[in-house]
């Protein structure tokens, strides 16, 4: 396991007290795995991404550990994290389109990056840079340009090149495709796959609210709801046989090409997520869940129902337990 996050909790300081945006989240990524992290805005998905690389002053880790390649990340210690950024953990930020300063040429930004990380053999890295630019269809000319001279897709690709230049073990890609056109989206998605296949990044977490992009590029998907993990499974399982009611509703609300309003009326999920300032006890999806029952007043555990598939839902774990109780039935599940 190259990346292991255990019982991670992250809180934001606010004048009304701490707001726990990420609550006891655990997951692991194998080498070469791209995990999609999906959820609504405010679900804590970006907070997880940020916590793994940079806890800013408003945030604090209130519990849990993060291990990358067997080494624990000192996520609460900004100074100790500094040499690990870009080399162990790297981030493509959410607003990558505007992450490049307009006052420096791209080439200058890259030499700054190498300087601040005390890279010894700069020539080797720059040679590798040229190779990677060629790989994704950019010429060396971009190094002599300012960011505003590039199209959105080019800017996004340059940002990913920079984030992965020092071959990080874990890449956190936060909404990298959200602001792009469909054809550019596809190019950037395939670029992530290619970089993973070539080992430029060992594993990656792709954070987005767009499940259909994750269906293309991710190996597994984790669904977050109101600061907690709701479900984690391989992509095909999430898409075809999701178990958590929230995942089911989310999948059902997506329009596919060819679906029109006069043929099928899609439905959203009524209601909204609870406030995280004083979250209600028990399952946080309870108020919006069509299957809620008494037991949902207790917090459901995030349990593995079969290898690689974990769900936090009483309905699911109860029915699985019932099935598992009958001998000989387990295989059929």
């Amino acid at each position, binding site marked *: 396991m190259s990346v292991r996050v255990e019982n991670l909790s992250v809180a934001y300081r606010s004048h009304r007290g701490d707001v726990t945006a990420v609550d006891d989240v655990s997951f692991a990524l194998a080498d070469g795995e791209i995990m999609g992290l999906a959820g609504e805005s405010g679900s804590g998905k970006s907070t997880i991404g940020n916590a793994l690389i940079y806890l800013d002053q408003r945030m604090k880790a209130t519990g849990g550990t993060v291990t990358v390649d067997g080494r624990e990340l000192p996520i609460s210690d900004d100074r100790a994290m500094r040499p690990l950024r870009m080399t162990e953990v790297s981030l493509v930020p959410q607003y990558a389109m505007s992450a490049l300063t307009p006052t420096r040429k791209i080439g200058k930004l890259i030499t700054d990056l190498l300087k601040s990380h005390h890279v010894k053999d700069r020539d080797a890295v720059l*040679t590798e840079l040229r190779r990677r630019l060629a790989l994704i269809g950019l010429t060396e000319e971009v190094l002599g340009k300012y960011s505003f001279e590039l*199209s959105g897709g080019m800017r996004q690709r340059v940002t990913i090149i920079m984030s992965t230049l020092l071959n990080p073990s874990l890449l956190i890609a936060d909404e990298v495709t959200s602001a792009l056109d469909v054809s550019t989206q596809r190019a950037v998605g395939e670029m992530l796959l290619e970089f993973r296949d070539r080992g430029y990044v060992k594993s990656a977490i792709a954070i987005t609210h*767009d499940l259909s992009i994750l269906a293309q590029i991710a190996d597994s998907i984790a669904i977050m709801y109101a600061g907690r993990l709701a479900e984690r499974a391989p992509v095909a399982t999430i898409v075809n046989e999701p178990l958590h009611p929230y995942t089911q509703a989310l999948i059902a609300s997506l329009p596919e090409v060819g679906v029109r309003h006069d043929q099928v009326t899609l439905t959203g999920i009524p209601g909204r997520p609870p406030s995280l300032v004083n979250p209600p006890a028990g399952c946080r999806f309870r108020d919006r869940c069509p299957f809620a029952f008494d037991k949902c007043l207790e917090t459901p555990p995030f349990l593995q129902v079969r290898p690689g598939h974990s769900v936090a839902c009483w309905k699911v774990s109860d029915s699985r337990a019932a099935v598992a109780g009958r001998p000989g039935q387990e295989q059929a599940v």
Partner: protein
Amino acid sequence: MSTLIKFDQVSKLYPATSRAGGLTPALRKVSFELPPGEVISLIGESGSGKTTIGKVLLRLARPTSGTVTFGGKDITAYSQRGLRDYYRDVQGVFQDPFSSYNPIYRVDRVYDMVRGSYFPKVSDSEWSGRVEAALDSVALNPGDVLGKYPHQLSGGQQQRLLIARALLLEVKVLVADEIISMLDASTRVDVLNLLVKLKRQGLAILFITHDLSLGNYVSDRTIILRHGAIVEMGATEKIFANPRHEYTRMLLSAVPELHSKWQHSPLGPVAVAAPALALAPALAQASMLDELTHAEQVVKRDLRAVFGGARAVASGKSQVALALEPPQLREYEPDHLVADPE
């Protein structure tokens, strides 16, 4: 009155953003009509001119040539009062809600301004009732959003506040420019269904998007734009069932779908300093688009050469006019036009 909005041969040139200068043709002789109660999707990539069409309709950009009429009247003729009445009927909601608010005021101010301009005689209680009804129809809880500053709200909340603002005005035409792209999946469909509901009440909607599945779900007719020109337009189901233009097909093939995977063919080894071979088809496609956009920024002649008549320089005129000339649209079947390849 069967047609509410009519675009007739509308062109728009912008100064290019590159250091080399020049002009970018954002729209090239675009013509279409929008009747009441219809949703038209404008689909295209960035630089295709879809947002410019919305801006022209909202009078945020003046067309370089051609006319836009609302109920038979040229919209460029409005001034002062006429313009205020025009905005009572035609409103826009934009892609980026963050830049639609003044950060030093509470978000309610957008409603107060609507009230001050258009409904000064409505009583406080009736007004707050209307605001609550509008917020309710976009699935917002008034207590959660009213009295807050923009930075205290999520993008989705801000966006829905702006749609509610347009609803308060009871507009006839809504320009919805990428309004869905910043919303969560679970509320996206609600906003789409809201648009369908409003359309059934007679609202005409210009739905601008790069997401073909969203455009397909909500619209009656579809216009595919590329480099400022219409390449395919007609009834939505005809275009999606039978896309004729190569560009439309390329766009459709790039749409991520839940149940089918892109064919990703791994790239071979790449030598250092190899000429920029974009090897995967999608990557090649993207960089081809980058280059085309750049190549089209070379129209450097005086605007008068195109539109000025007598003073036009003969050679310059033909060159620029050629660059502005959109591909010819031909009828493939009833209500389905396809452009010649460029």
